[in-house]
């Protein structure tokens, strides 16, 4: 007897928008000889000292659970790191949680603050999971579109216009995936005023903070008046090239963290013990490698911006992350058409901008976390593709 599964499954889950990236992945993965600008993770392997420490941790038998919030020793290192890099202080005892990837931090943050019907503002184009996580937490995602004319920076007026009496929080990601846009201190200060005026919570996803190139990086949590209303999310994936380890962390006022720890102990218990040991090493002894990787991305960013502009794909200069988000509007194609024709004709994988929200339509995300030779090859193929459209 065949079951009609639909009636047994969660309607909320069924109604979640399928990830636009998934579709594209299946297509690209089935092809040979693809040059990929579609990868949202570093091309570096995790620095050896960190890997070595994970091996040691396994050899030494660190295989048990840890405290829910993570090893205190690691939280202490995170506290030191956040103080050193972003100039904000969090108490390792009760203001920091080590999570399974920064994604889980985001999930925890929404679950801890959202009541049914609460609206959460999301600045788009945005990482694919924010809106769905808000829905899973019982909230309503409200997107604020940003545009290339303004460097994909959200303005206080735009936020003001999106606020209703149901608005609970705003999520900001800087440097941003997919646009690479990095908000500077002045811009954050202006945004902070609106957030404070309307008494909102700010969830700031700063996973790409280590990969900021021009003006350095300012954390929203360090803006006056924001500390007490900010949930700061960061992790090891991008800056330390540790995506597959799934290690992130969040820091926030202790009243929020206490509630999140309660949720976390039921959902996950703790992040893997041996990996937490290695993360201590990452924070203590990887400054040079992180710097080396940042410089390498910075050079490739410069290359990509020029190369794309040279072949007629206009793009703003992204201040961080490893993405360039050029416009493809003049080709007359939609993002998806452009990406899929480019893949079929020239075997170059990019991600259609609409995967990151409606305001991403007319753009593509090109990741430059790949070798300069691959980037050059991709540019050659893309130029040929664009010429073929004329």
């Amino acid at each position, binding site marked *: 007897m065949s079951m009609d599964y639909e009636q047994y499954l969660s309607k909320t889950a069924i109604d979640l928008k399928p990830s636009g*990236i998934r579709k594209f992945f299946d297509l690209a993965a089935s092809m040979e000889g693809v040059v990929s600008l579609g990868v949202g993770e570093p091309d570096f392997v995790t620095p050896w000292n960190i890997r070595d420490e994970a091996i040691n941790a396994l050899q030494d038998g660190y295989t048990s659970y840890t405290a829910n919030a993570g090893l205190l020793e690691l939280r202490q290192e995170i506290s030191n790191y956040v103080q050193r890099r972003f100039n904000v202080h969090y108490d390792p005892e009760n203001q920091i949680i080590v999570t399974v990837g920064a994604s889980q931090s985001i999930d925890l943050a929404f679950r801890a603050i959202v009541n049914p019907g609460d609206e959460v503002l999301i600045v788009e184009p945005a990482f694919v999971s924010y809106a769905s996580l808000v829905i899973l937490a019982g909230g309503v995602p409200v997107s604020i579109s940003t545009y290339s004319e303004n460097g994909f920076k959200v303005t206080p007026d735009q936020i003001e216009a999106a606020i209703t009496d149901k608005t609970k929080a705003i999520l900001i990601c800087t440097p941003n995936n997919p646009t690479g846009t990095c908000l500077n201190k002045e811009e954050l200060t202006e945004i902070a005023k609106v957030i404070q005026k309307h008494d909102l919570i700010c969830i700031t996803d700063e996973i790409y903070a280590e990969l900021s190139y021009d003006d350095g990086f300012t954390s929203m949590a360090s803006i006056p008046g924001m500390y007490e209303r900010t949930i700061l999310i960061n992790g090891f994936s991008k800056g330390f090239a540790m995506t597959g380890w799934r290690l992130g962390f969040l820091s926030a006022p202790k009243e929020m963290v206490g509630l999140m720890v309660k949720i976390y102990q039921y959902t996950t218990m703790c992040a893997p013990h041996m990996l937490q040991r290695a993360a201590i090493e990452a924070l203590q002894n990887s400054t040079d490698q992180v710097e080396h990787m940042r410089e390498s991305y910075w050079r490739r960013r410069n290359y990509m911006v020029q*190369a794309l502009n040279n072949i007629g794909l206009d793009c703003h200069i992204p201040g961080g992350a490893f993405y360039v988000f050029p416009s493809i509007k003049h080709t007359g194609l939609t993002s998806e058409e452009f990406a899929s024709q480019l893949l079929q004709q020239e075997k170059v994988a990019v991600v259609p901008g609409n995967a990151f929200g409606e305001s991403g339509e007319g753009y593509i995300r090109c990741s430059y976390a790949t070798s*300069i030779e691959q980037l050059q090859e991709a540019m050659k193929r893309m130029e040929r593709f664009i010429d073929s459209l004329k």
Partner: protein
Amino acid sequence: MKLSNDELNILAILEENHRVSTEAMAMQLNMTEDNVQKTIKKLEDNKIIVSYPTLIDWNQIEGKETVVAMIDVKVTPQRGVGFDEIAERIYRYPEVNSVYLMSGTYDLSVTLEGKTLQEVSKFVSNKLSTIDNVISTTTHFMLKRYKHDGVIIEGNDEDDKRMVVTP
């Protein structure tokens, strides 16, 4: 010698891969190609960039296998020139790959490459040991090369293990 940021950035690129075109370098560093070429020329003229060697794994090629020996050499330094003159008499031999003056229990570390064990032994006994002021030599034959000048010979870190599209 103090270098500018542009100069340091060019060195960082070249050290990783000296075959990157000057055009690609210029684009990576927001410089003009002409400026990149001039800067490289200057670094070469100042012997900051000494040479652009290619790392070849000869041992993979039939008939081209080599034997490498590292020799600890003790010498009596000479008045006025110290170790330099003896070092020169050694490094002038083309079969000598490298010569370093060392602190510790011996003075010169000499790396030698030959086709056979016999060839290397002959050089040590006939040429190296007979140089005036060479007191003793200790020859270590290299059995396997794991890493050379920062390059791992047989590692697989280089393979891209990432999925082709990720968020």
